[in-house]
């Protein structure tokens, strides 16, 4: 190794994977419904889209993506809940990988809820 910049480059590259290995109580949480109903409706590509989008933006330290079980609204699957500490929980329904990009950008990064994807918008 001939310079500190080389070390820095390796660190930046490797950091993403190691960042997962600690508990961060202040992190925002993205919970993807992964019960049978969710998986059947296509929750897996949604989950992967979240992981990739967050990695692409280097937000692994601040956002945790995890799965959860069925929350009882199977007709609206894939269901995704977004919890940002200090704010109300937001439930997105009938999610797709395309919608994920906007939720990450608008909601998780810029703190603007994407109202038209939420359960409230669908029920009306």
């Amino acid at each position, binding site marked *: 190794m001939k310079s500190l910049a080389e070390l820095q480059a390796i660190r930046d590259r490797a950091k993403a994977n190691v960042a997962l*290995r600690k508990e961060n109580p202040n992190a925002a949480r993205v919970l993807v419904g992964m019960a049978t109903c969710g998986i059947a409706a296509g929750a897996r590509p949604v989950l992967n889209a979240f992981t990739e989008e967050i990695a692409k933006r280097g937000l692994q330290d601040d956002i945790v993506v995890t799965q959860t079980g069925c929350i009882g609204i199977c007709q609206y699957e894939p269901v995704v809940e977004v919890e940002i500490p200090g704010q109300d929980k937001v439930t997105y329904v009938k999610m797709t990988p395309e919608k994920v990009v906007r939720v990450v950008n608008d909601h998780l990064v810029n703190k603007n809820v994407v109202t038209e994807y939420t359960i409230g918008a669908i029920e009306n």
Partner: protein
Amino acid sequence: MYRSNVLVCGGTGCTSSNSLQIAEKLKEEIAKNGLEKEVNVITTGCFGLCALGPIMVVYPEGSFYSMVKVEDIPEIVEEHLLKGRIVTRLLYQETVEKDTIKSLNKTAFYAKQKRVALRNCGVIDPEKIDDYIARDGYAALGKVLTEMTPDEVIQTILDSGLRGRGGAGFPTGLKWKFAAANDADQKYVCCNADEGDPGAFMDRSVLEGDPHSLIEAMAIAGYAIGASKGRVYVRAEYPIAVKRLQIAIDQAREYGLLGKDIFGTGFDFDMELRLGAGAFVCGEETALMTSIEGKRGEPRPRPPFPAVKGLYQKPTILNNVETYANIAQIILNGPEWFASMGTEKSKGTKVFALGGKINHTGLVEIPMGTTLREIVFEIGGGIPNGKKFKAAQTGGPSGGCIPEEHLDVPIDYDNLLAIGSMMGSGGLIVMDEDNCMVDVAKFFLEFTVDESCGKCTPCRIGTKRLLEMLDKITKGQGTMEMLDEMEELCEFIKANSLCGLGQTAPNPVLSTLRYFRNEYIAHIVDKKCPAGVCKDLLEYTIDREKCAGCGLCSRKCPVQAISVTDYTAPGKRRPALEIDAKKCIKCGACMSTCKFKAIYKA
């Protein structure tokens, strides 16, 4: 990009209970469920809670699965990793609170710990240098080589107050300063990884869980004292540690973090392993270096100290693994940060290996100054089976026993010396009311008699004579005069032995004589062992009123010492049995087999 990391402990403890098969099965099940691009399985170093092994932690949830079995894996993968339903039944039950799951860091075992030397153990994959770099690895080496002079490095270590973690607690910075001051064409940086104290395994855990922290620290030490060569003296009995350290050295070479012109600064440093054959005396610095040179591992008189004439007669520093594991953190966080932890004269944290009669057997790292009571009863989870605490043994064969009255002494180097024990490398063996203190002293002395290299007379013959006296006492042949003779002999051995082995060998005897003299007297005067351990002073008897005459004990007895009497107790159908004390070998087989609790030992 993975969404989940599954960490499986690959330390020696968990490996011995099949953790590597668990990791294999995990990978297999994950592939079966098509999750291999989403879930990463990492084999890490020791988590510390060895009593609950094999251990497995799933992030980002932080779910702590304990005593995992290979059969549990399909369920964990399908429920937790695929569907997101944590298998609460298999979690470490202390983390489960009604319907919620507590963070691992809030459990009694981890809450009071402060992990500095063990910061990467159980977090990174020790066989991947990138994992170490991601946790700021080699940043301290970079900082030292590009921003600091060797003198500044030494001053930083001096200011931090770091003292040697291997036993005697000599200030590390001072050692470096002496070696730096001596000019020579070649100097050496050595690491003592010959962890010989029975019951201590923190160095092994660092080597197994975070080997790069040692490599980085040795390179920093090399820069500080002007050495270009390093040697690690590690026990051959630590095969996993040896393998991972060698992998780490190879990776560091490949990245150019060992070798020529590191970071383009012109600094050269490389290192090699030397395997020790497990002689306890080779933990002594001069014996260790003699052994590295390929000669018989025997100590030599000091001075000259290794800083002047060490390995191959060149100026050398020798530090222990745990000491090195602190170095990079001190450089990165500053000496003030390190000195803010601990007591006035003992800074930082210390790793203890908890063993013996304690619920949470394992490794804990705590700030200096924590009391023994906190370690044993809070972090360690207390004594199993509701037994009473009798003593804690620290410092291995060189240390002593700490009785209940000193449970609240803040633990640091100087306080332990003041109460007749020593820090040693941090083995901490807990003893309860069933341990005989004379027997404990005999156990440790047997070890030092075996391990004495035989070069100097006080150690070779003195410890042998001491053991003979102890042996007589445990057989009921002791006299009260013997106690004074033993004390006198102990002082003589301490004062006249050549190296640390002999100088500290009498400590277990002296400390038990100091705090548990009553037990010695019971052996000598009453011919009784109060804890019921010393076989020659025991007698097994059958209570004929309770004996149902079933004959189970006589069938178990290996020497046919149990026979039928002509007495039948009221309410029993068959005659009672009795033990012939002359034939009895006191194995205890009869007592553990009796269903009527009719057999006693006293």
